[in-house]
């Protein structure tokens, strides 16, 4: 019953969005804002021809690899910093000074260091997600109740057990939240990065179609970006439901 209602409201919301888009395009009346019908039409057309697929897959690969790289570095570090409070004196100013820097400004540096290929794009996006996850993990790990640590210590737990049975599960739901939050920024930065020195990826596709004035096709790219974000978002939610069953 509940599922039906949820589904119904999703369809309703989608309807409202499409109608608003239609009205807006009628009102603006410019080729830069085609109606949803022609945008979706060109999306399906390009999708059917398969000419969007490689761009979509490359972008999906880049953003997934970035997030994976960020996870495997930020989570252990965040847990460790949260556990070893003696490091706070140094770690706090380090994070505090570097966190607010807009990481996108390092794009040229990364391209100079890591070349013009995937590596520079992946590391740049990873850096942004890394900070988000690091700060969340660290915050959550350090605020763990000492009683809980005592409680497992009294059961015989060593450091490894504390990480495994207390710290990691305690931060896991927050990691998913921060992944969802940073997803938007990650894709936005990927877009910028893909407009340079590459000939594949949705960002490249968007800019290339735009420069040709092929707005219909450009919208197909925009829809592709939207689907990429939506799919990853849903994937995170599925993983969270499987890995954090206690938060239900």
């Amino acid at each position, binding site marked *: 019953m509940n599922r039906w209602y949820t589904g119904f409201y999703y369809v309703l919301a989608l309807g409202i969005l499409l109608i608003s888009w239609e009205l807006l395009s009628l009102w603006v009346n410019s080729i830069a804002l085609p109606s949803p019908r022609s945008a979706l039409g060109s999306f399906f057309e390009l999708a059917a021809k398969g000419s969007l697929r490689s761009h979509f897959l490359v972008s999906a690969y880049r953003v997934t690899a970035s997030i994976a790289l960020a996870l495997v570095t930020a989570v252990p570090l965040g847990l460790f910093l949260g556990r070893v409070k003696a490091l706070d004196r140094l770690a706090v100013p380090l994070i505090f000074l570097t966190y607010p820097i807009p990481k996108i400004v390092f794009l040229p540096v990364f391209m100079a260091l890591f070349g013009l290929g995937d590596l520079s794009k992946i590391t740049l996006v990873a850096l942004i997600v890394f900070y988000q996850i690091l700060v969340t993990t660290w915050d959550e790990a350090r605020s763990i109740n000492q009683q*809980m640590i005592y409680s*497992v210590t009294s059961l015989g737990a060593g450091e490894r057990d504390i990480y495994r049975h207390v710290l990691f599960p305690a931060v896991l739901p927050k990691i998913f939240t921060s992944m969802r939050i940073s997803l938007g920024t990650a894709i936005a930065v990927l877009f910028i990065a893909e407009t340079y020195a590459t000939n594949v990826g949705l960002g490249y596709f968007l800019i290339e179609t735009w420069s040709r004035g092929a707005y219909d096709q450009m919208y197909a790219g925009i829809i592709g970006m939207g689907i990429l974000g939506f799919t990853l978002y849903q994937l995170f939610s599925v993983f969270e439901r499987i890995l954090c069953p206690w938060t239900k």
Partner: protein
Amino acid sequence: MNPLSPKVEVNNLSVSYRNSGQGSVEALSNVSLGLKKGESCALIGPSGCGKTTLLYVLAGLLKPTIGQANIDGQPIRPKRKETAIILQDYGLMPWKTVWENTALGLVIRKLPEKDIEKRVSRILAKLGLEKLRNSYPHQLSGGQRQRVAIARSLALEPDLLLMDEPFSSLDALTREELQEDLLHLWQEKELTMVLVTHSIEEAAYLGQRIFIFSKGPGRVVAELRNSGVGKEDYRSSEEYHARTDEIRQILLKHRLQSI
């Protein structure tokens, strides 16, 4: 009396916490107490007098600043395998099911999976928790959570059980039911047991020895013997009522009644 359960001695124990700023807070001051093998003991005193601190010392989680705490004549080592402690908020992991919480100590001690399976099933059955084995702590009532905490400690087959206000947040009916169960477990397993409480009735019902603490830094201001504990229908006996009155009098005399 179980010849294997330990005797506990605390001699001239003082504990201070170093504060994050300068200076330190003294939590316990010159406390001495002794428990025979298999005895049950209740610690009662105003909040902040160091009862939890004493329990942490007995569990080997904190070191004495001055003085000694011994189990069977040996200084307490951290991680003594046969000591189980139930912390004030039960210390259950919100991300583990009843089953996983109960098994946690055994998993950490790397027991063979089959043994874990057997022990945990037996204990859950004993505490009436089989049906809840896949539930998470937030899906349980306070009493059920406390049962899981007890199950988890018993899974370790301890000989010394330490409990920090285990029943204080339960309603009266559940509390009496759990006190009853605890008493039976204590008699059956012949544990040495130390229970922190702020309830006069609970101290009188469960403690063969009752230690009354002053305001912090805690000292022992009185020590009572209460040998009727565990007798049939003790709660409605003269002796029990005399004991609660006695405790109340001592608390009044020392102006500790506001606990």
